[in-house]
């Protein structure tokens, strides 16, 4: 029997621009976020492409040094604050968290909408800073450079980041309250999908960490605007204090980015292996462990910044502690595939790419946490390669995997499988070609944020730029076939993947109130293989 679209669902429940801009439906807000983060991702991607284009030649021939500095600043700010942090939580999390716990909306729907408006307001400030001349502080805003020396609109950009931070705090708050208070009957903590666990862990970091970046940037703005000495020694401040405060948020922030991505992988791997997740409670608690340990490792960004040898020792040791729960997750995902019945569909390809690339990203983190070695590779392309392996190879891959996995649920339509598989493959190849050479470049000693570089680094830079052009194709393809699928895609049906989880028990797309009948949960999550027929291979 061919599936048919449900007659009424959240997308056609109401029409008109007002029904979107004033919606309190978490699913519609997720769609608003989907468009906005895609927009910022594309802008950030254009900056990245220009950076890679510029670095084709060693002598800085394409852009002026100041322009180049603005490009990497705006690339970083766009990608970190306006794409990586909101992508999985605000798009997929917003859509799925209430459905996964079996309720009709988030705890505070109006605050949820406010989050999106704050995000857009923050984005507007950062775009304004961009079009009114750009900012060249680097996304790290290090003082006293940014507070006392630069002539660009640092405060405007900082205000954008601060406002967007509140959006993140509200989303985190909403998730935490929803998980605590609004679970369906029978949805015990031990039955929560791992996607919920990991977003819950990320939410803890959002509400505890994000205020610190706001405070830090406000202090920076006070120093820049009113010459109140906090970080600039000329005014009696201490520049290392800025780094402590900045990384106190910005290190945990990488876990805000990666934890929800890990949650996506924990959903995809069991589904396409037709197996329970291996070691559910270990995967769940490793998310919490990452969130907790993540708060006490920040100074590993500062081993050569002039901190004491003894604090460096402590932070190095603690950094290894945070590596362990990540390793536990990787091993559990791998073990989940053992003796499964594995279908290599597009989401699974992305999940497998994630496991491989995140493993490399995580393992190269061990290099950077090793004190004597970090002295050499700190602030080189090695660091760039490392965090792009985690953030692009890990997080963006997970986001794309999740988008493919839940696309039928969000739109009711199937994307076309062959071009999707091709895009996954192109992304994987392009990604590795872009970023693997950067590990070598970094160990050779090429520093970050260099507008021009010695000629012996050129071949590796050209390889990297070539990879970036392939990667760009891999990112553009999904845009095209997702758009195509909205009109021409096959009707997906409620549960095209034969997956477990409450989101698959409602229709696709779900009704505005998510469920036709209030769900009652009687099973553990990932109850694959209980009297099921082996689904058809796509």
């Amino acid at each position: 029997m061919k599936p048919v679209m449900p007659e009424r669902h959240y997308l056609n429940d109401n029409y008109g621009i007002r029904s979107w801009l004033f919606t309190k439906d978490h699913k519609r807000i997720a769609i608003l976020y989907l468009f906005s983060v895609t927009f910022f991702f594309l802008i950030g991607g254009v900056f990245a492409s220009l950076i890679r284009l510029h670095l084709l030649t060693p002598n800085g021939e394409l852009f002026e040094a100041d322009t180049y500095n603005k490009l990497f600043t705006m690339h970083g700010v766009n990608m970190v604050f306006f794409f990586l942090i909101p992508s999985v939580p605000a798009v997929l999390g917003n859509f799925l968290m209430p459905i996964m716990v079996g309720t009709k909306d988030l705890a505070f729907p109006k605050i949820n909408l406010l989050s999106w408006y704050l995000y857009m307001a923050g984005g507007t400030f950062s775009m304004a800073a961009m079009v009114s001349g750009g900012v060249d502080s680097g996304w790290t805003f290090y003082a006293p450079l940014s507070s006392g020396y630069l002539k660009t609109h640092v405060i405007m950009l900082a205000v954008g980041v601060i406002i967007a931070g509140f959006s993140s705090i509200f989303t985190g708050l909403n998730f935490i309250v929803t998980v605590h208070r609004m679970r369906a009957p029978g949805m015990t903590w031990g039955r929560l999908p791992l996607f919920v666990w990991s977003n819950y862990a990320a939410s803890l970091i959002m509400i505890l960490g994000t205020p610190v970046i706001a405070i830090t940037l406000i202090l920076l703005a006070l120093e820049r605007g009113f010459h109140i000495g906090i970080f600039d020694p000329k005014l009696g401040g201490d520049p290392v204090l800025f780094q402590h405060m900045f990384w106190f948020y910005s290190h945990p922030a990488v876990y805000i980015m990666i934890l929800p991505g890990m949650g996506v992988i924990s959903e995809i791997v069991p589904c396409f292996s037709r197996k329970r997740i291996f070691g559910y409670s270990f995967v769940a608690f490793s998310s919490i462990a990452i969130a907790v340990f993540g708060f006490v490792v920040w100074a590993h960004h500062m081993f050569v910044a002039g901190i004491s040898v003894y604090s460096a020792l402590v932070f190095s040791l603690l950094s290894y502690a945070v590596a362990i729960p990540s390793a536990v997750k990787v091993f559990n995902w791998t073990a989940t595939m053992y003796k499964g019945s594995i279908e290599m569909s597009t989401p699974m390809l992305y999940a497998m790419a994630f496991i491989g690339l995140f493993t490399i990203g995580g393992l190269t983190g061990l290099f950077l946490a090793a004190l004597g070695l970090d002295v050499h590779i700190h602030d080189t392309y090695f660091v760039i390669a490392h965090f792009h392996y985690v953030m692009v190879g890990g997080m963006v891959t997970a986001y794309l995997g999740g988008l493919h996995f839940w696309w039928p649920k969000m739109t009711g339509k199937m994307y076309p499988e062959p071009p999707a598989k091709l895009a996954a493959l192109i992304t994987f190849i392009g990604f590795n070609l872009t970023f693997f050479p950067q590990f070598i470049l970094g160990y050779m000693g090429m520093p970050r944020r260099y507008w021009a570089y010695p000629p012996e680094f050129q071949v590796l830079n050209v390889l990297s730029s070539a990879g970036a052009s392939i990667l760009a194709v891999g990112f553009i393809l999904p845009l095209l076939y997702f758009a195509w699928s909205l009109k021409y895609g096959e009707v997906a049906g409620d549960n095209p993947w034969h997956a477990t989880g409450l989101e698959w028990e409602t229709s696709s797309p779900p009704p505005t109130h998510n469920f036709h009948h209030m769900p009652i949960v009687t099973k553990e999550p990932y109850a694959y293989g209980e009297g099921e027929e082996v689904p058809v291979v796509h």
Partner: protein
Amino acid sequence: MQLNFPIFPEQASSVAGQVDALYLFLVLIATFFSLLVAILILFFAIKYRRTPERKAEQIHGSTLLEIVWTVIPLGISMVIFVWGAVLYYHMERPPQNALEIYGVGKQWMWKFQHPGGQREINALHVPTGRPVKVTMISQDVIHSFFVPAFRIKQDVLPNRYVFTWFTATQPGTYHLFCSQYCGTKHSGMVGEVVAMNPDDYATWLASGKAEGSLASLGEKAFQQYGCTTCHRPDSGARGPNLEGLYGRPVRLTDNRVVLADDNYIRESILEPNAKVVSGFQSIMPTFRGVVSEDEIIAITEYIKHLAPQEANPLNNRSAPTQIRDSEVPNIQRQNEQQQKTEQGKKPANPAGKKP
């Protein structure tokens, strides 16, 4: 395009080989685990691929396995941690006999001063086979002194001296990069480190147009800024005597004891009221904006060269810096007596803080 590009940097310092050994160990570990995971997921994906007959075998988990893959990575991590920590500790502890060179970073250049008074810009000449300690400060924003061939890096801060050290092993010319983003011409803040064998180095030093040793430059500045007006060894001095000060503990008015090192001396010139020596008053004006970082380095070098006087501490009120904790009550009594005798003539116990 240079097609015969290297993929490994030159090893030109005593620690380079040690850093590379740790790096290669980590490359091995990372390769092993990446391949392990990659091969497993590919193998599983192929061996257990879905066929109409294939049913997944449900396994809930295994506490034993969880323990195994927690403990093994933890063990390996601890090996890496200890290895990295030992190496770092070594890299952070310069040998006592190191040749001392001073560096100043500014947007966007490196300036270096040798003890013999030689100065260079964006170049640093060093001898091979001898530890060299580079003490640095920034005139503006944070920079970072990075010599890939030596595997060393140190952020250079605007408010205090930091140092790095190395022993060059191979004569040659190596990249010096600023690795902390410092504004427009960050990538132009580069230079070279020239390692020379000791004979060539001696020749180079002799050919340098030094106007006199760094200490003698400091002495000139010391007089030029009128420091000698107060910082004199005689008993009428209004500031502490600086002879033999360097490297000694100093007791402050609030009874804290601090070490008179480079950072202390610099702070005392720029923020005289921050740490006033016990027995003196905060009458010294700040020299911020007057004296340059280069001059402060020279003055500090001069103070280092002031040999301890053989003066008798009891009548040398101006040298409380050399006093041990146990002698403090004596000094206080002495100060009180002098205050009584001098009352009426001038304010009690006049003195600035040192320098």
